[in-house]
């Protein structure tokens, strides 16, 4: 009876470990996409992605890798910010804003992912991170607040302004569908 209970406990633990492992590995494509949106460049995105995973591997070897799925994104953001520190910085300027047009989805369809990444990566912090996290469609608003360490109103303002600015830019680079 005791052996049965021990086996069942062992099975539960192993299932939990599998779940944690699969959760981590499943989030990797999104992690790369996040790095790409943050840097706007494949080479730098790869570098941030690989550095994050090396750090994760190091922590895992010590048994210190946090089970929290946000950890890898938090670390990746840190790496991306570090990498882009020496690169071209966005100039502080007032970006034109326009409300969302009914044909916005059609205009977005004319873009490719690289253009979107280039636009997001050129946004100032923390708007860049907020937009990257939001359009990954991976996190709840509470998780995003946690990742960005901002209040709800700030997060809303970052995303809302980003939308309006992106719409204004969209109107200049795409044709009416």
């Amino acid at each position, binding site marked *: 009876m005791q052996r049965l209970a021990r086996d069942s406990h062992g099975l539960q633990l192993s299932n939990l470990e599998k779940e944690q492992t699969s959760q*981590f590995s499943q989030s*990797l494509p999104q992690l790369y996409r996040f790095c790409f949106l943050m840097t706007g460049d494949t080479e730098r995105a790869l570098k941030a992605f690989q550095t994050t995973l090396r750090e994760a591997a190091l922590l*895992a070897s010590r048994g210190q890798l946090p089970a929290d799925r946000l950890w890898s994104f938090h670390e990746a953001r840190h790496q991306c910010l570090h990498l882009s520190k020496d690169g071209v910085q966005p100039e502080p300027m007032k970006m034109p804003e326009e409300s969302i047009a009914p044909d916005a989805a059609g205009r977005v369809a004319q873009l490719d992912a690289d253009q979107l*990444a280039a636009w997001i990566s050129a946004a100032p912090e923390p708007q860049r991170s907020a937009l990257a996290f939001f359009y990954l469609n991976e996190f*709840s608003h509470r998780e995003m607040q946690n990742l960005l360490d901002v209040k709800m*109103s700030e997060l809303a303002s970052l995303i809302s302004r980003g939308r309006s600015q992106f719409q204004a830019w969209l109107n200049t680079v795409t044709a009416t569908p």
Partner: protein
Amino acid sequence: MRRWLSRRKRDLLECAPISETPPSDRAMRSALETARTIPTAAATLSAQHQFDVALANLVQRIAIPHEAKEWFVNAALMKGAKRSWKKTARHPAILATGLAILVLAGIAVFFFVERLHEFPGSTTAKKMLVMASNASRSQFEPLHTDAINLGDYFFMKFQLEHFDIPMQFADLHVRGARVFEDEDGQRVAHVLLAERGVQFFLYPAERSDPARTPTPARPIWRYVGGEGWAGAVADRDGVCFMIAMRGTEQELRSYLADRQR
């Protein structure tokens, strides 16, 4: 258009989830439900949602390079470590909280123990101990009698009823006595004995309804200490009798036990 909604709900709608799955967050669900009941807000929300879906789809089209894919296989071997309770317990925030709770518990225990020694009249008794330690013979009216006669003395001279000395101290010789008013205007009888380092006090008991509290057959002693003196107080007929003795509570206890015999 969204002015119909509260600021909090407007903020939540700006971060409305892109996927069609109902959000687990109650506040977000409520904001979405409210917005859907207002036509202008619903239209704006729908346009925003289409815009967000288009961008999220575009993000999902970001190609994953081969170099990144290689990591996916190895990452499957990595697993997050669940924080052990020992590690959690060592977290500074947990340690600080634990310490604060311990300190609060210590203070609570201290006050509880303090309250255990408290009884009606204990504050007055402590003041009497201070007086006992500072009393000099010149403050007293000289008397040469046994303690048993003090009840009559206080009644006859000061009209103080029930200011009797318990029988166990009846044979003690009295050298002096005085009556004074304390801070509350209550009269206190102070007796100086021939026996050095022992004094008596008699004062009205602090009691809301003396009639309801029966006088016990044998005195119940309650102890106080301070100023190098120990005091034992017994309540009888609405009058507190206190014996003050230089020394510790333990010494006073053994003195009283001897007297009892």
